């Protein structure tokens, strides 16, 4: 009865509060999210919204990796677009299954990151943001205006659609939304775990140091350009993967949908509302911004200019009054709960110890 013993041990650790509250909350949320598609079986609209939340949370978390190293990327839609266009074109024109195409997509997105990253990461401050913005703009212009690149048809700004294959897992197409749901959930959970892991790794500490004070970090022997480049390339590759999934899920793509400046701003907005430069922040931002965006779309559909105005106001308010995003109060609340209710006794012990230590 080894399994039972494992569960008992887990229960014991929970009772003795050896597991931090954060992990317990993550587990509960994950279980709830796993139940969602079954609970809303007949309401695929809600499931769709949650999938959209996962996708944008994923994008923002990938974007946040650049932020963790202290840089601001303002052209992330380019990498998302490269991912989407690569898998989409490979499948619809060359019949390559997205399961393979996604690797090409990741490769090309990383290549784009190398092209823009290697020359610019020695520059400080806003120049990197400007260069990523210019890169995104160039890619957008190319895709919008070229009909063919070599033998490849890219549509010249038109909507491209993916041929439907019905229930075909081999080419990553499904009839119901549930498989997409779990794929997106796995991707989100995976990237947040990855981001957390990076944050706690040696490289993550380097990122934090560079972000805090680049000169001080370099004086301690950290090669700032190298570690920034790594953060950027990892982010590009993961964004390319996200773009590939985005395209497979929506089954159509156009420059406006995956490459436009507004998409770069949307990614940045989600990241900033959640908490730029934090691990969990961008994901939380996705859970806040996507439902807001959907509500705006439903209620103000007649005034298409209204939602960008509201996005702009949200962005300005957060930058002015809550520059670290909702992540900060969220984490503070978590700490408070943990101190107050989850481990009150241990805390008291700690305080006693501290008092003893001081004496």
């Amino acid at each position, binding site marked *: 009865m080894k399994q039972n013993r494992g569960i008992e041990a887990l229960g014991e650790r929970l009772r003795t509060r050896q597991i931090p509250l954060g992990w317990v909350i993550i587990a509960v949320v994950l279980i709830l999210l796993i139940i969602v598609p079954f609970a809303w079986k007949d309401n695929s609209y809600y499931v769709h919204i949650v999938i959209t939340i996962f996708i944008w949370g994923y994008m923002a978390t990938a974007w946040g990796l650049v932020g963790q190293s202290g840089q*601001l990327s303002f052209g992330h839609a380019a990498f998302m677009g490269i991912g989407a266009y690569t898998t989409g074109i490979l499948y619809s024109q060359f019949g390559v299954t997205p399961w393979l195409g996604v690797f090409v997509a990741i490769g090309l997105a990383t290549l784009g990151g190398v092209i823009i990253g290697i020359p610019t990461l020695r520059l400080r401050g806003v120049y990197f943001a400007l260069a990523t913005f210019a890169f995104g703009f160039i890619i957008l212009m190319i895709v919008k205006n070229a009909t063919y690149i070599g033998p490849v048809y890219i549509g010249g700004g038109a909507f491209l659609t993916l041929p439907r294959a019905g229930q075909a897992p081999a080419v990553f197409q499904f009839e119901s939304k549930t498989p997409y749901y779990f794929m997106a959930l796995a991707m989100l959970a995976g990237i947040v775990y990855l981001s957390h892991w990076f944050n706690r790794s040696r490289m993550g500490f380097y990122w934090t140091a560079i972000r805090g004070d680049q000169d001080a970090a370099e004086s301690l022997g950290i090669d700032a350009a190298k570690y920034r480049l790594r953060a950027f390339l990892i982010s590009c590759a993961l964004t390319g993967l996200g773009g590939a999934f985005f395209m497979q899920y929506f089954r159509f793509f156009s420059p406006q949908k995956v490459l436009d400046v507004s998409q770069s*701003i949307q990614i940045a907005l989600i990241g900033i509302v959640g908490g730029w430069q934090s691990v969990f922040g961008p994901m939380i931002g996705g859970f806040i911004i996507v439902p807001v965006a959907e509500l705006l779309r439903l209620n103000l559909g007649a005034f298409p200019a*209204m939602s960008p105005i509201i996005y702009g106001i949200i*962005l300005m308010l957060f930058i002015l009054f809550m520059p670290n995003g909702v992540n900060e109060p969220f984490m503070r609340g978590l700490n408070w709960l943990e101190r107050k209710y989850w481990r009150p006794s241990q805390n008291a012990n700690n305080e006693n110890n501290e008092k003893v230590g001081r004496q």
Partner: protein
Amino acid sequence: MSEALVAAVVTGILLGGLYAVIALGLNLIFGIIRVINFAHGSIMIILMYLGFFLWYLLGIDPYVGMLIVVPVAFGFGYGIQHVLIRPMFKREKSYVVEPLGVLLLMAGFDLVISNSALWAFQARVWYVYGSAFMGSVSLGFLHLTKQRLIVVLVAVLLTAGVYWLLNHTSLGNRIRAVGQNREAAAICGINVHHIYALTFGLGCAVTAVGGCAALPFMPITPFAGMGLALRAFVVVILGGLGSVRGALLAGIIIGVVETVGAHFTNSSIAAIIVFAIFLIIIVSRPKGLLGTIEV
């Protein structure tokens, strides 16, 4: 050189004059305050709407309307810097010269004002007709629109004026001091935030002059500013941060590259070439052609 190529170069110089004026305004903001004014294009378009409606409703010629638009632009710019950006500067650590947050703040501001313009004025194309200085001058095979020539003239005069202001007046000294080292300028008793706001207002005013001078031949739409502002960023980087003469030179270079590029290929490839120049300059010579500020 064929006649068409000469014509393309001359058109490029005329276009470059417009880029130079917009870039001159941006250069004051970007070069001195080190704020990436992402909303520069939208601010210009809003001011051009003001000039347009002065003409449309009151019949004031855009060239005369400048007398109203430019002071409004100055006040608008002063207000933006004073109300929106100053708190950011006060919050950031003292040695952060180019707060990234301000870039995002201005991106948000750009979303708000450009979409407000879309909401208020619709996606309609507005244009002024029948203002002063219609017609064109003929030089052999070249036919130059007078109104476009005026923009180049305005660019040259404004460049000279701003150069004189920055280099030969006490206010200019203070502005340059703040641009070089904010802390040291503050220690010398300069009210840094007042100078910043003045500079921002000045930048908006210069841009408004360009916008009004372009109004007689340039139709306005809510999002027309973005493309112009992006080129203005290219011009500022190419000319050199904080370099007034560099902005004029680079503006004309970019204008010529764009029209000549469009002459041989098409306009979207020309735009790609312009942004490729931007990337190359940022990477290989970030201080620009005539720049002095090290980055």
